[in-house]
């Protein structure tokens, strides 16, 4: 967008201001992660101290952290893959196909996200036990698909609707199958949306504690459960290690975000070319 220097100034100021405000708690966490236990609860809170990397060392060298990290990665990627594979075509059907019950189907998908997990967890656990999904990776993956599926379907439907219908109509008239028209013409145009829902789905899975807690017992460990267990003791929170582990746990998401940015720009470029 062409913008005047003044508009740019306002925009940059706002972005920087918000960035500073939004990141200040995280900056504090960074400081906390570099402190010894006594410094972390010192009063008045310390800004100047001799920093130590011991917390990061302790977290990274813990077997539990590494296996929880692996568990979270497997579950996050698995659930995003399934949510996209099932949700995106579903969204396309809702956006483009005229069929009876379309509206109801949309509301049905939405309703999967309406009941708080707290309310249905007990019967849900029983279903899981019945089909043997308790305490398995597959079970947690499916539960996490439920967390993101409605977002995937509804956000993608919005993106599909924003694309002109003529695009696939033309392709279908030229003899392409509907599926092909969807895969070759529409999907590439919806890349910004796909990236966004993929990132959101991954974050929702990555941060979930409740399902990870209630649907697993012995065989599956994820990061939120591990962090809570390892660094929140009965007597007190181990602030240094908790902060270090919490910050380390955001790294995969940040890497993902930075990596996906490339596609976001590319999606933009495609949109402009058409």
């Amino acid at each position, binding site marked *: 967008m062409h913008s005047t220097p003044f508009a740019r100034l306002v925009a940059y100021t706002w972005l920087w201001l918000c960035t500073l405000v939004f990141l200040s708690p995280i900056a504090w966490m960074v400081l906390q992660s570099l402190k010894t*236990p*006594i410094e972390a*609860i*010192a*009063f008045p809170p310390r800004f100047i101290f001799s920093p130590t990397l011991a917390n990061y060392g302790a977290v990274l060298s813990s077997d*539990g952290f590494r296996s929880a990290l692996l568990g979270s990665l497997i579950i996050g990627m698995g659930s995003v893959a399934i949510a996209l594979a099932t949700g995106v075509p579903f969204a396309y059907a809702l956006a483009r196909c005229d069929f009876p019950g379309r509206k109801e189907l949309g509301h049905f998908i939405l309703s999967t996200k309406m009941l708080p997990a707290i309310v249905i*967890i*007990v*019967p849900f*656990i*029983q279903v899981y*036990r019945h089909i043997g999904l*308790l*305490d398995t990776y597959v079970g947690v993956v499916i539960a996490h698909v439920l967390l993101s599926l409605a977002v995937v379907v509804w956000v993608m439907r919005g993106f599909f609707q924003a694309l002109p219908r003529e695009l696939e109509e033309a392709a279908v008239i030229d003899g392409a199958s509907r599926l092909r028209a969807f895969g070759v013409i529409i999907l590439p145009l919806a890349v910004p949306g796909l990236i966004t829902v993929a990132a959101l789905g991954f974050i929702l899975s990555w941060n979930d*504690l409740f399902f990870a*807690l*209630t649907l*697993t*017992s*012995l065989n599956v*460990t994820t990061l939120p*459960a*591990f962090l*809570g*267990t*390892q660094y*929140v*003791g*009965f*007597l*007190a*929170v181990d602030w240094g290690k908790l902060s270090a582990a919490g910050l380390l746990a955001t790294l995969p998401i940040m890497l993902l975000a930075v990596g996906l940015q490339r596609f976001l720009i590319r999606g933009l470029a495609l949109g402009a070319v058409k």
Partner: protein
Amino acid sequence: MKRREFLTATAAVCALGKLSSASAATSNFGSINWKQQSGTKLNVFMARHPWQEAIEPEIDQFRGLTGINVQLSELPEDQYATKVAADLSAGVFEYDVFMSQYYDAPRYEAAKWTAALDPLMNDPKLTDKNWYDWQDFFPGARQIATIGGKYADRVAITAEAQILIYRKDVLAKLGIAPPLDFNDLLAAADKIGKAGNISGITLRGGTYAWWPFYGVVKSYGGDFLTPDLKPVIDSSQDIEALQMYADLAKDAPQGVTSYDWDEINTAMLSGQAAMFLDSSVIYSRIKDPTLSTVSNEIGAAPFPTGPAGRHGSSHYWSLSMAAASKQQDAGWLFIQWATSKPVQALLQSKGVLAPRASVYGTSDASKMYAADFLDAVKISLTSAVILPANAKFFELMDPLRVAIQQVITGDSTAATSLKSVESQWQKILA
């Protein structure tokens, strides 16, 4: 969730095990055949707690003694409670032995979630009764075993007394003697607060304020419920007690309504408060110079007396066995081992107070704890009270928590808020 497979004995575990096996060798484990369940796999579930921290490295000793493989899972207390409640309610509880608290007992027994332990305790094949010595447990600890009234579903593993912990240096500087009764305590807290550098006292104003509050209520001659579960929370003694509690809270750090165990500890450890009226469990931590900035300045006194005497709260964590467990014999062997004299003595020497009287006379105890602390615990425990657990316990505690907080924040008075609690309790118990 932290899971540690004890099946695979690593070098590190072996090194730890040395100390344990040394003590195991010198300890007598009675006449039963401990190897009878050898090869069984046992799932044990614990909340994060000093007891858990102390016993975890010793579990290897149990493995050596019995040949039973223990798989241990842990969660912090809040999440632990959620997980246990969800799994028990859904009927998918996978653990054999788990940590419980005595106020859960009525619910657990009513739903038959826990196994009866008395048959196992009375089975000569499984228990050497003379060696185990049930009468050695404190009366309160024995009482909580059958608190649901139907069958013994738990054995106490810890003893916690509500005592007064104070900063010797702060009190000495202001010329204050360690307070003996509640009026002294309030005067001392006021004086320290007025001096300005540090809060007079820290106490719980959060979700679990009812535990320390019960000690104050009993010492003022009030109570929560009659034995046949009629609420008496709005008596004049209860109102006085709440007034005292709220007055003390005025000398606590700002924001005391969010203070539970974690926060009152932090306030003491970081030197923000001069006195502490809560569980003795804080002691080993506050005396640890790597965690506490005030480790050299700590004194301990018995729970203060009120108009009706000295009746601080006490608390016992316990071990229970799931009714659905298929390894009940092995589970009982674990519970028996963990609550036996030698193991309790070992844990006490690591800073966790035991529910067994015999353990207190040992030389280990006096090496570990200062004399004023041991006295404070012993004196407080002799007249300590336990909360009247019943099936609606937490539902009852919720309006009380609200009332305590509203009086502390000044949004209500002690009399009005307790009247409201009384009427809500009548409804809940109707």
